[in-house]
């Protein structure tokens, strides 16, 4: 049986040249670290620990080796699907003793190549850990396993008059454990805050198999260092999250969605100020997209523009407890926005079906981009008045070399999604984009990854947003919690730390 498993080191190296194609690009994978390789004995152990759930059939493992964008692909030969925390503990304990690398994987919807193996790391999927453990109707605290799909949690809560505090386009596939591991932001952050505030507790399995039970359901607990904050946003490199307890808000009785058109970005920002002043406490989302995004939605997804063509579009959502009050506030805001000519056109939706349609204009831009060609994605935080300047500067900088350059995102949070497409992977184009985009961002003290994380693709750009001493301490934390470095290697922390 021994010769059956291919040695795949050089093969994976070629697959893993990253978006640039050149082995010297900072986004490209480093050399394979000297982890052990999976042996027949290892497989026997996995099969005994997870009967029927240790998968080695190449056809089944293949989809877990590739990310959603189809931009990076690993060559793992083993996909493990535990159902309990205990099983995760046994697997990690074993892997650490054997020096086997492990890639924790949730919904595999990440956009920075962090969710799939680089080489032959064992894929540890949380997909079968999808039980809801408890829900307290009075406090709104939900406790569940890490593999619960976000949309399923939303449906469960909606029946009980609550909602999840976060919402993102990937909701149909992403899992809560992955959301927490990447500190996902999303469309509701403006109103309910980040996972750093809403996550009350975590259960994490460490690299040596130790189960760290920080699964508290208390709103307030100042007893010692708050360890769970280390794991939130750690991208699977410090421990594997196996359970989450999260504080959920009440389902709003009245939801309105407004789709507006503006002539200039300056008017868009002024609308935002007006909006905060007049809608303030009921505002739950403020998103934007540009006319290029609209063109892609029209062309590739046949979604019609709900209003007339404008250079910029805003999606505003209000959520409140009284539909009469909210309608009145919204009416006043819209009247003011129109008479002061901040907004040139718009439409309002109160009905579920229309709300879904208006939201899809913003949520499906990512999908439309995949039909436009090979996409280079940048997720940048900037001072809000600078957000669109990066898009216009990039357009000017690239000229005819790119197919489309679009800007959209959570303008209310100061977060721009800058996307550039080309007909095929283009190393010359990439060389024009990077490091231009990162240098531009650093110049205005922005973040080179607002919410997507670093993963594989952006790990070496961390110094554009964090100082060397800061990153050095991150390295020390990593060594403390994962001395052999088996958890999600090649990700998040820069290569020069090793």
């Amino acid at each position, binding site marked *: 049986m021994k010769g059956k498993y291919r040695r795949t080191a050089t093969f994976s190296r070629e697959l893993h040249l990253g978006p640039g194609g050149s082995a010297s690009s900072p986004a490209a994978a480093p050399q394979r670290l000297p982890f052990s390789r999976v042996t027949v004995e290892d497989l026997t152990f996995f099969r005994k620990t997870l009967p029927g759930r240790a998968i080695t059939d190449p056809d089944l493992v293949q989809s877990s080796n590739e990310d959603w964008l189809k931009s990076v692909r690993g060559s793992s030969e083993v996909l493990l699907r535990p159902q309990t925390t205990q099983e995760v503990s046994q697997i990690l304990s074993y892997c650490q003793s054997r020096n086997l690398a492990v890639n924790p994987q949730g919904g595999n919807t990440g956009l920075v190549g962090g969710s799939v193996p680089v080489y032959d790391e064992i894929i540890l999927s949380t997909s079968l850990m999808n039980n809801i453990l408890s829900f307290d109707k009075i406090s709104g605290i939900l406790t569940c396993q890490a593999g619960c799909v976000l949309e399923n949690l939303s449906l469960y809560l909606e029946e009980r008059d609550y909602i999840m505090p976060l919402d993102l386009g990937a909701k149909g596939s992403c899992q809560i454990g992955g959301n927490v591991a990447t500190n996902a932001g999303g469309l509701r952050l403006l109103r309910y805050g980040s996972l750093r505030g809403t996550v009350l507790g975590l259960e994490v399995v460490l690299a040596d198999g130790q189960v760290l039970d920080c699964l508290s359901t208390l709103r307030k607990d100042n007893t010692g260092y708050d360890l769970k904050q280390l794991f939130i946003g750690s991208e699977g490199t410090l421990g594997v999250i196996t359970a989450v307890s999260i504080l959920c808000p009440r389902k709003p009785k009245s939801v309105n969605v407004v789709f507006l058109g503006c002539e200039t970005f300056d008017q868009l920002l002024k609308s935002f100020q007006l909006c905060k002043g007049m809608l303030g406490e009921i505002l739950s989302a403020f998103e934007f997209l540009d006319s290029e995004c609209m063109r892609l939605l029209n062309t590739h997804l046949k979604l019609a523009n709900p209003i007339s063509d404008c250079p910029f579009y805003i999606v505003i959502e209000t959520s409140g407890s009284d539909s009469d009050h909210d309608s009145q506030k919204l009416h006043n805001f*819209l009247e003011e926005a129109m008479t002061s000519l901040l907004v040139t056109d718009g*439409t309002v939706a109160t009905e579920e*079906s229309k709300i879904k349609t208006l939201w899809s204009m913003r949520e499906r831009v990512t999908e439309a981009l995949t039909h436009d060609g090979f996409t280079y994605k940048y997720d940048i935080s900037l001072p809000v008045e600078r957000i669109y300047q990066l898009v216009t500067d990039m357009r000017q900088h690239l000229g005819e070399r790119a197919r489309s350059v679009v800007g959209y995102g959570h303008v209310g949070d100061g977060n721009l999604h800058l996307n550039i497409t080309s007909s095929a992977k283009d190393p010359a184009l990439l060389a024009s984009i990077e490091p231009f985009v990162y240098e531009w961002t650093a110049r205005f003290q922005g973040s080179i990854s607002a919410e997507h994380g670093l993963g594989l693709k952006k790990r070496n750009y961390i110094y554009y947003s964090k100082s060397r001493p800061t990153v050095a301490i991150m390295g020390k934390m990593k060594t403390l919690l994962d001395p052999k470095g088996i958890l999600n290697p090649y990700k998040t922390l820069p290569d020069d730390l090793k």
Partner: protein
Amino acid sequence: MSGRVLVGVKRVIDYAVKIRVKPDNTGVVTDGVKHSMNPFCEIAVEEAVKLKEKKLVKEVVAVSCGPQQSQETIRTALAMGADRGIHVEVSGKDYETLGPLQVSKIMAALAKKEDAQLIILGKQAIDDDCNQTGQMTAALLDWPQGTFASEVTLDGDKIKVVREIDGGLETIKINTPAVLTADLRLNTPRYATLPNIMKAKKKKIANVKAADLGVNLTSRLETVEDLVGKLKEAGKV
């Protein structure tokens, strides 16, 4: 020739909402559930507004029969371009038993009162799927009917209607005044734009009682039971 069009708009549970049957099986839960204009009625309003924009009709009047909240549905029609609304207030027991027969009597009475040339309705409502109101209205008025319309062309005092039927498409020519019912492919309803939403707040909605129109609302139908099918277990391949 008044050039007036009556459009019926019905307030129904929004199609994106998950329906729940009441525990006593007497009907569907409607309290606190999102309602909106019946999608086929939206298509009817859109067609009427288009005719007005082409200057083929002079006035579009939106009509709804139901409780206080039906006024929201009329406002949506006004925001899409209807000129004024008529709310026939029906509530309580009368509303629970309100069906195509009662509504068609009301529409017929209003058509005479308002001297309408054309009535456009949705082909059916998504809550009861009756598909009867348009046909009954035409019969009560002894007007021709162009039902399941996927294309409407006004030609002098006649109307050419392309109808969606099982065998394909049927084209008929009918005299006016007439009743039309809208099918899915007749048009794509517009989004109500902000300027129109603002204008709609100032448009008039008249309140009328069924009795004032000489219409008796008693129904000869009684819902015996509302059953929901048993959810089957997922199969295994």
